[in-house]
């Protein structure tokens, strides 16, 4: 019989399952501000019940965050800059759309299949993280989504060509359009929070330490006994699956999927800027970056019209150059934070 034991030890909850030991820090100062932020995100949107445009903007921000969070983890975990994470949005989106259109599968029915497809496609592309380095890795990842986009044009009978696929079953249908928008926002928020919790937990565990070591110097990490290739494959596969799930959400949310919108370089640049401006390697920063970029893009478009296409990237570039530690750095610099729990060791 497997022994299960839960104990509270030095500000940590420790769960023993047989030989396995799982720890969770319960210091209030670690959870207070994130809980406040979640409370704001949960309580604020009903105030915009009659503004579906703002709810759509918030949903879009959550979707950007859902892409940026795994991309941020991937950048650290494999120590390389991926310039084409959106290929997995395409894989997830098209898989969801095709499953819905041809097999009539609803969102919950196609979810496990899209997870499997995301894992398989991530695993198949993961050897890139081992064989390619530096510029070569960046170029290969940059080209992959563009190749995929061209394939959607060549096989337009399957992928719908430039116009993409339509007629996908709706994610939510509650009879009221405004209620649909609100519930869709909460679903996107739930997905984003799950991603953030998973990646944050990973960053605070041994996997996070391994990712940091690989990012700093993978040769030394290898020499210290860390199977770098294995961890890079695991990191790439799981993050690719997470990005594919975002594609799944997009397909069911808008009722279709088009590679024209999500596979080009412009979308990739937006995601990378969200990661960098939010604060490279800061998971909470990606959320701030996603909301900032979404609101900036929409605000500039409303205020300046077509000139916003010039202003938007210009402002982001200026922020990228001036805010070295990102938007989250503005907050964290003024508040001492322990990245890892401090171990209080008493010297005798």
């Amino acid at each position, binding site marked *: 019989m497997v022994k299960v034991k839960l104990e509270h030890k030095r500000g940590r909850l420790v769960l023993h399952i047989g030989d396995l030991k799982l720890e969770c820090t319960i210091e209030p100062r670690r959870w207070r501000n994130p809980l406040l932020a979640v409370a704001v995100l949960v309580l604020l949107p009903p105030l915009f019940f009659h503004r579906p445009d703002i709810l759509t903007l918030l949903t879009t921000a959550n979707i950007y965050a859902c892409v940026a969070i795994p991309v941020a983890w991937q950048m650290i975990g494999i120590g390389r800059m991926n310039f084409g994470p959106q290929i997995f949005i395409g894989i997830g989106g098209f898989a969801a759309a095709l499953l819905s259109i041809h097999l009539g599968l609803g969102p919950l029915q196609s979810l496990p299949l899209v997870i499997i497809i995301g894992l398989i496609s991530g695993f198949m592309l993961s050897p890139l993280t081992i064989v390619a380095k530096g510029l070569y890795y960046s170029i290969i990842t940059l080209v992959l989504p563009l190749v995929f986009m061209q394939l959607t044009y060549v096989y337009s009978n399957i992928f719908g060509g430039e116009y993409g696929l339509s007629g996908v079953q709706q994610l939510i249908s509650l009879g009221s359009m405004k209620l649909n928008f609100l519930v869709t926002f909460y679903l996107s928020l739930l997905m984003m929070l799950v991603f953030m919790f998973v990646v944050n937990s990973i960053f605070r565990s041994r996997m996070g330490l391994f990712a940091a070591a690989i990012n700093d110097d993978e040769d030394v990490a290898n020499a*210290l006994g860390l199977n770098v290739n294995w961890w890079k494959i695991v990191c790439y596969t799981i993050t690719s699956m997470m990005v594919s799930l975002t594609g799944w959400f997009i397909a069911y949310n808008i009722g279709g999927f088009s590679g024209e919108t999500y596979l080009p370089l412009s979308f990739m640049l937006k995601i990378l800027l969200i990661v960098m401006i939010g604060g490279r390697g800061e998971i909470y920063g990606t959320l701030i970056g996603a909301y900032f970029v979404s609101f900036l893009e929409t605000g500039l478009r409303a205020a300046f019209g077509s000139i916003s296409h010039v202003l938007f990237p210009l402002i982001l570039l200026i922020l990228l150059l001036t805010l070295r530690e990102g938007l989250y750095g503005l907050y964290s610099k003024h508040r001492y934070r322990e990245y890892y729990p401090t171990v209080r060791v008493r010297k005798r």
Partner: protein
Amino acid sequence: MLLNVQNITKRFGGLIAVSNLSFSVEGGEILGLIGPNGAGKTTFMNVLSGTLPADSGKIEFDGHDITNKAPHEICQLGISRTYQIPRPFPDLTALLNVAVGVMCGKRRPHMGFGDALLDASHCLEFVGLFGKRNILARDLSLYELRVLELARAIATTPKLILIDEVMAGLNPAESRRAIKLIGRMVEEYHVTLIWIEHVMKIIMEATDRVVVLHHGEKLVSGSPREVSNDPKVIESYLGKKYV
């Protein structure tokens, strides 16, 4: 016999960096590996630790054939190393640098993160860096980086540690502290050392046996006194004129 190196050769294109190198190391021994610059000492270290593959030859360690094994496998079998130019993880604290060694050096899937940090703190305390455990590695001095590398090596619970010019860049006081630390490390952790060093005084005093490399080949092997008086060694360092 803990380590048996047989006819190891490593080429970089037309350049033979290590040529038919053979020697053995007994458990508990401190072996000095010396030679002029470009003799192939660090290249051999890289081959032994798995960073570079050998072109020919065989390496047996503790009954295992480790020739051309992956570096992480060799580390988990019990070989750890330091670097000529310190290579810490700059964005991690000293404690986390050592924790990587604790968690990866041996298979410990059920070791909690807190326990690993506790083990790491013991290693830091041993080398005298406990007070700097929360300082980022990039903010440590050269001496502190060198002892951090020793702590990281100890954390992997090795049987053999490869030390690569640990005294380089240290002042005399720091060098004395480092030698004492290495001596304590051998006594308390019962490790075997292969020590590359250019400071002859340390090699003469601290090592049990010395192997001299020149142009990638083994020139001489013997006790420090025998090696220091060998005419071939004097010729390789200073030239024929001084033999």
